[in-house]
């Protein structure tokens, strides 16, 4: 044990030093509290034996200084006192001393007090180790909970996608037939009107020149064509919804990412129209093997973020490029941008700039997870007030 003695009376100091060194301890003997504190600050001791009345710094102040210094391990403090000085003992224990020893020091008594001190130090060491282990376990638990939240969010999102896929499949099934009928009927109606108009040319003059009748045929013909256009839009919408969810493609598939971008754009079209210009700068892309429904979620998230970042009017530019066995999809907006201090946090689960109760703060975390699971990466560049650019890079064998 490393033991520090603080005692101004040199015979007592020397006697203590001789006893302690005789038992194999490493001893530093100092002649007052100030010198003892200086040595303690240089390197803490296991045990400190200190007198009470000393010049410069007394025992009470030394004990308080040591207790206030929070050394890495516990220091056992023994106070030396005269046999009649009970008040000093109380004051010393109150200041933080662990034990006291009456002068003149009896070697047997000192030895048992040291043993008690060693036991306390060992218990304190074990306690510190347990606290450290507990703290580490707590940190691990925090990480696990964070991962669990992320996984749960991804699962919820995946469930949502599955529900959307089911819904899309159901809607497609239920809508396609009646739409087909309407579409076919419209076609028949247009052709029938065409024939009626031909017949009208052969009709007597009073019928043929009936402006009311002719206008009615034109109106009917237009209605038929409008119906066909509307039917085409419904069919395309249902197809986009199906493509986006890609329920039938929950497994890996070789796809062209531009198809996913287009399907996603058609789903967010209503949010962008009349406010945001979308520039498609599509370079050639090789097809890549991936989970298309997951990557569509990434595109959806990024497009919606871009849309929200643009406060009034603006532009979203989508670029696709390929090379070096990788494909890149860049989604750039002219929105408000991201604060530099937030850039390193935007992919953390729970981070949100949308305010409490608005965003879940999980969108970009999920994007990050999906892209890294495809062995890809997301780079972000942003300038406050000018906009942000997210670049998704995926290996061509991303599966």
């Amino acid at each position: 044990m490393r033991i520090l003695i603080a005692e101004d009376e040199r015979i007592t100091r020397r006697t203590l030093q001789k006893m302690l060194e005789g038992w194999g301890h490493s001893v530093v003997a100092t002649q007052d509290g100030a010198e003892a504190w200086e040595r303690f600050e240089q390197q803490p001791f296991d045990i400190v034996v200190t007198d009470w009345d000393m010049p410069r710094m007394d025992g009470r102040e030394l004990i308080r200084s040591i207790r206030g210094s929070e050394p890495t391990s516990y220091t056992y403090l023994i106070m030396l006192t005269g046999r009649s000085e009970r008040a000093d003992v109380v004051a010393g224990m109150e200041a933080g001393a662990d034990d006291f020893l009456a002068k003149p020091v009896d070697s047997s008594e000192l030895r048992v007090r040291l043993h008690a001190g060693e036991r306390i130090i060992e218990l304190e060491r074990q306690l510190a180790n347990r606290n450290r282990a507990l703290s580490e376990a707590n940190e691990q638990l925090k990480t696990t909970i964070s991962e669990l939240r992320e996984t749960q969010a991804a699962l919820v999102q995946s469930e949502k996608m599955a529900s959307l896929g089911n819904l899309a499949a159901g809607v497609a099934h239920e809508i396609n037939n009646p739409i087909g009928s309407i579409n076919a009927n419209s076609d028949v109606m247009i052709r029938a009107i065409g024939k009626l108009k031909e017949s009208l040319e052969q009709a007597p003059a009073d019928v043929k020149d009936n402006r009311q009748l002719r206008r009615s045929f034109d109106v009917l013909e237009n209605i038929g064509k409008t119906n066909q256009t509307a039917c085409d839009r419904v069919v395309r919408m249902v197809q986009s919804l199906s493509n986006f969810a890609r329920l039938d493609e929950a497994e890996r598939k070789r796809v062209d990412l531009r198809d996913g971008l287009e399907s996603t754009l058609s789903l967010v079209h209503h949010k962008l129209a009349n406010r945001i210009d979308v520039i498609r700068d599509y370079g050639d892309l090789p097809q890549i093997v991936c989970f298309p429904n997951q990557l569509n979620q990434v595109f959806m998230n990024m497009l919606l973020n871009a849309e929200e970042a643009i406060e009034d009017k603006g532009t979203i530019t989508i670029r696709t490029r390929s090379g070096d066995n990788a494909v890149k999809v860049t989604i750039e907006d002219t929105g408000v941008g991201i604060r530099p201090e937030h850039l390193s946090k935007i992919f953390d689960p729970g981070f949100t700039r949308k305010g409490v109760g608005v965003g879940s703060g999980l969108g970009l975390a999920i994007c990050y997870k999906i892209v890294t699971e495809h062995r890809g990466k997301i780079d972000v560049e942003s300038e406050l007030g000018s906009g942000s650019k997210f670049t998704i890079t995926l290996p061509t064998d991303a599966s």
Partner: protein
Amino acid sequence: MDRVDDDIEFLGETVTMLDDDVPALLENIRVAAAERNAAALAKTAHTLKSMLGNFCASAAEEAARDLERMGRESRLDNVDVAVETLEYQTERLREALHLFLRMKNP
């Protein structure tokens, strides 16, 4: 001797310290008593008491304790007698210690 594990050499070392330090401490006590400086008397008597305690010198230690108490309580009526008693007991102790050392280490 028990306290120093019968180490005569170490006892000699501490007696030398006693010889070195006692005259100055006694002189300080005498001055404090003459000046009726109770605080200085208590402090110096306390130091000397601790020192004498190491030699299990009950009479000398008791004389120092009396003086310390007088100083602390500022009761200095009999201080001169007490100082003389302390000087006498301390001298007796030193003589006894030297005699013991000569006997053990002729």
